[in-house]
């Protein structure tokens, strides 16, 4: 008996342990049995490969000696080194290549966000909550700037406002006898204005959506208590818009940090550098190490803004519980301000759509820029034959090259966008359904990363990684696949946001109802989830399509023989100095983006705001 006791004790504690590990096992088993867990694991592996690996390799290049830098660093290629860190953060040129540009970047990003909000939020209010004439039309039309490549704004700006500081052709202002001062023609002011114009659609989309979902009674309740319109706007509407505004600000911030073309075109004549331009200089002079360090800082800035966003959103969760049936939001009557409001909105449309598109279009119709005599106008660059431009002798619309490139653009970008949309929904599915919440959260973090990495840097990382076989995956460089993959990776941030919010809105019930009737997973997906999410899928596909069609930085580095895209075609034409034809190709790009989004919205009742996950 006495001998037995310790035995027994030991055995009970062992049993205890067995039970505990048993439950763990059991839990793991149950979790693994859920298809969402499996999908989650597969997705993590996939994005680990498509996103995390390139980002890490990019960041590592800032810490490792690059090929050819052995002499400078006194170490073998691949060794760890602090040389690049020191050069960026603590060298005689630090203030020129890093601290100054960093400050400028923050200045430009901050001001353009404020400007975009200052214009976008009131416009969103006009569009969603008032009797503004033509507000439905404006709701679509004011989104167009997002579909124009940002540098078309820069092109328009220089065409109109350039002055003698950059010599060459006369700007339009000069042509009519007024020489714009340098601060207006180049540098921070135009960059901020252009960023703001380009970003306003973000604000309009997200804030309009939020305002539409805001019960009208919240405003009326304040009205009943005697609050003036201004007080109501300041104390009720605006604070309630904060989550949407913050989301928009985060998206804009990351874009503003990474956008290179505008800052380059308009900054250079004023010697105004931002991080993306020094990054570009480093990449184009093959200083991968310095580029890695600068890219890391940019990623870090984006990550900080994202964290701020997440923090506020967590705090804002209490904003969302509005119980009970809420009345249709009623639209405020603008009264005698109707005309003024219409004028302002139309003005925004004019400045952000008509001016850039018009300038672009005019530049394809005028032989010599700025000369408005009738004889200077021509359709040659569109439909001409036997033009004197040796490398591209037909008009853009009759050239076989354009059509081939357009077809490549459509199928490759379309395919990438479709894949992106599906992956986005799957991420949403895992986030909402997976019994292990960490899996979903990890996926969310990973899929947002590409947004923080500037396109050129991302493409360079892809090139270094995927030129060689890695494990079971063959070398992808040289195939169209790598282009499609990087487009998919690059557009995941929006797609996964859209997927998560669509799945959250759908909730568990429809699928659970089918489950309770004995439907297996594949059937549930096929007959319930996917059909219900058709329009969400279209929305999640739309944004990747739009930005894929105009995206340049990714493809220019990864383009392969025989896969000319419209963007690469336009770059080739610019190389030749055929700006007319190059701009005409850009017009075609804009047209495809516009038509594509119009068609998707028509066919699938998708909407862009849903595509942003708003």
């Amino acid at each position, binding site marked *: 008996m006495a001998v037995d006791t310790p035995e027994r004790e030991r055995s009970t504690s062992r049993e205890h342990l067995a039970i505990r590990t048993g439950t763990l096992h059991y839990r793991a088993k149950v979790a693994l049995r859920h298809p969402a867990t499996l999908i989650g694991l597969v997705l*993590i592996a996939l994005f*680990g490969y498509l996103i*995390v*690996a390139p980002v*890490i*390799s990019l960041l*590592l290049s800032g810490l490792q000696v690059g*090929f*050819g830098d052995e*002499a400078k660093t006194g170490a073998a290629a*691949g060794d760890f080194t602090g040389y690049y860190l020191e*050069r960026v953060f603590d060298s*005689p*040129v630090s203030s*020129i*290549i890093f601290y100054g540009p960093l400050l400028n970047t923050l200045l430009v990003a901050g001001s353009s966000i404020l400007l975009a909000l200052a214009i976008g939020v009131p416009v969103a209010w006009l569009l969603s909550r008032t009797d503004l004439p033509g507000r439905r039309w404006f709701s679509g039309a004011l989104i167009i700037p997002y579909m124009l490549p940002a540098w078309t704004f820069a092109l328009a700006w220089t065409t109109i406002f350039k002055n*003698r*500081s*950059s*010599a*060459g*052709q*006369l700007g339009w202002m000069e042509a009519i006898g007024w020489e714009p001062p340098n601060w207006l023609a180049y540098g921070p002011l135009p960059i901020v204005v252009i960023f703001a114009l380009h970003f306003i659609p973000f604000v309009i989309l997200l804030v309009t959506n939020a305002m539409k979902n805001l019960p009208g009674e919240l405003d009326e309740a304040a009205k009943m208590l005697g609050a003036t319109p201004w007080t109501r706007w300041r104390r009720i509407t605006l604070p309630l818009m904060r989550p949407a505004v913050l989301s928009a600000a985060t998206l804009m911030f990351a874009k503003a940090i990474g956008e290179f073309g505008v800052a*380059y*075109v308009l900054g*250079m*004549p004023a*010697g105004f550098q931002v991080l993306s331009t020094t990054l*570009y*200089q480093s*990449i*184009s*002079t*093959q200083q991968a190490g310095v580029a890695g360090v600068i890219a890391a800082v940019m990623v870090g800035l984006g990550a900080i803004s994202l964290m701020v966003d997440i923090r506020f959103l967590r705090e804002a969760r209490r904003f969302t519980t509005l119980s009970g049936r809420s009345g249709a939001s009623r639209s405020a009557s603008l009264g005698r301000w109707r005309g003024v409001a219409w004028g302002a909105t139309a003005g925004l449309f004019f400045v952000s759509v008509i001016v850039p598109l018009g300038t672009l279009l005019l530049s394809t119709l005028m032989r*010599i820029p700025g000369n408005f005599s009738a004889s200077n106008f021509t359709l040659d660059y569109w439909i001409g034959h036997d033009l004197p*431009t040796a*490398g591209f002798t037909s008009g853009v619309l009759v050239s076989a090259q354009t059509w081939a490139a357009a077809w490549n653009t459509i199928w490759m970008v379309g395919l990438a966008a479709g894949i992106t949309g599906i992956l986005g929904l799957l991420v949403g599915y895992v986030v909402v359904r997976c019994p292990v919440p*960490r899996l979903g*959260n*990890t996926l*969310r*973090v*990973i899929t947002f990363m590409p947004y923080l990495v500037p396109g050129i840097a991302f493409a*360079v990382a892809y*090139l*270094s990684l995927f*030129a*060689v*076989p*890695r494990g079971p995956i063959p*070398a992808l*460089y*040289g195939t169209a696949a790598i282009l499609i993959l990087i487009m998919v990776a690059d557009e995941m941030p929006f797609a996964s946001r859209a997927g998560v919010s669509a799945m959250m809105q759908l909730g568990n019930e429809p699928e659970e109802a089918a489950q309770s009737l004995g439907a297996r997973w594949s059937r549930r997906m096929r007959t319930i989830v996917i059909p219900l999410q058709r329009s969400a899928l279209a929305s999640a596909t739309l944004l990747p399509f739009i930005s894929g069609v105009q995206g340049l930085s990714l493809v220019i*580095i990864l383009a392969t*023989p*025989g896969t000319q895209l419209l963007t690469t075609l336009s770059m*080739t034409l*610019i*190389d030749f*100095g055929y700006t007319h034809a190059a701009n005409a190709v850009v017009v075609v790009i804009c047209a495809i983006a516009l038509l594509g989004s119009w068609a998707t919205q028509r066919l699938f009742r998708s909407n862009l705001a849903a595509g942003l996950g708003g």
Partner: protein
Amino acid sequence: MKKHQPHRIAAITGLALGALLLSSCAGSAPAAPPEEQAAGDSTGDFNLQELVTAAQAEGPITVYDSTSKIETMAEEFTEKYGIEATGVKVDAAEAIEKVTREAQAGNVVGDVVAISDLPALKNQLLPNSFVYSWVPGDLAESIPESMSDPLVMITDPSFFAYNTEVHDTCPASNIWDLTTEEFTGKLAFQDPVGDNGYLDWFSQLEGFGEEELRTAYRQAFGEELETDQDSAAAEWVARLAANNPILTKSSEEASEAVGATGQEDPPMGLISSAKFRNIDEKGYTLGVCEGLSPWVGKTAPKGITIATGTDSPNAAKLFVHYALTAEGIAPQINDGKISSNTDITQPADPANVGAHLDALFQFDNAGLDTDWANREKWQDLWRTASN
């Protein structure tokens, strides 16, 4: 606690993947150096016919070059020899990245690689045996010593240019003039900080143009140059940077800045010879600044090499040979590039390059290592001086 876990997972996944990548990076050794596979030796008896026969037995080739003219060249090569060749336009920086990765992966796409970044070629691609330089035996005599290691295909001249609508003759007579107040904000050229070609040119000036620069200084100001900088070249570059030049994204833009008509006070510019065709195509009024002391312009070399791991070494060699003949290189030299084969007569071009050959600052392969080592130095000098 809980909140941090997703990040931790992400970090761990990332690290694991990173480690994996690193190890595979380090492991992939470049392909073995080439054995002399067939006909044609750099020095010994070269037989073109044998090379052609051997080449025709091989597969198709792909050629990287920084100009889209390469597409035409490749087509004409195919037409002439019946060997399928594809020309792909690839910028120097991309070409280096691509060639490196292709070689490491043993997945060679570009069989022939023409690269305008000679210092990188010399310091990155050649020592790692990713590519090799091969001079056709029958042409070795015609190629200057300074251009044969690595083999230069063409040099690309740029000229100091002025607007002929406003000025009858060049407003400057000495490149030191360009650093004076008269030319403040009045010289347009491509932003050198983002372009290796310019940085290398500065370095070459220091290495091979010191004498001429000092002499020219004396001519311009009537006194000896005294400077705290390392060299007359550095002094010139610093003064130029400080003189608020008009920096453009491309040579094309610089040609517009200088040559667009209707300007009252157009700047001068440093413009690639090819851009002089804008005189015809766009009606620009451009003239080469003849008589500018000590040089009217500079040249930038473009090397041509063969990928070590190519499956078609003979076809590649044949293409290199072809690119050094008048017929082969015609698409490129027609707009003002200069073949390294001195036997080829320079065709007429809008910049009339043939007439200025002797007045150009010539690039010398002997400076490649210095150029490579000093890029950051010149970049920093430009940045600090222009600030």
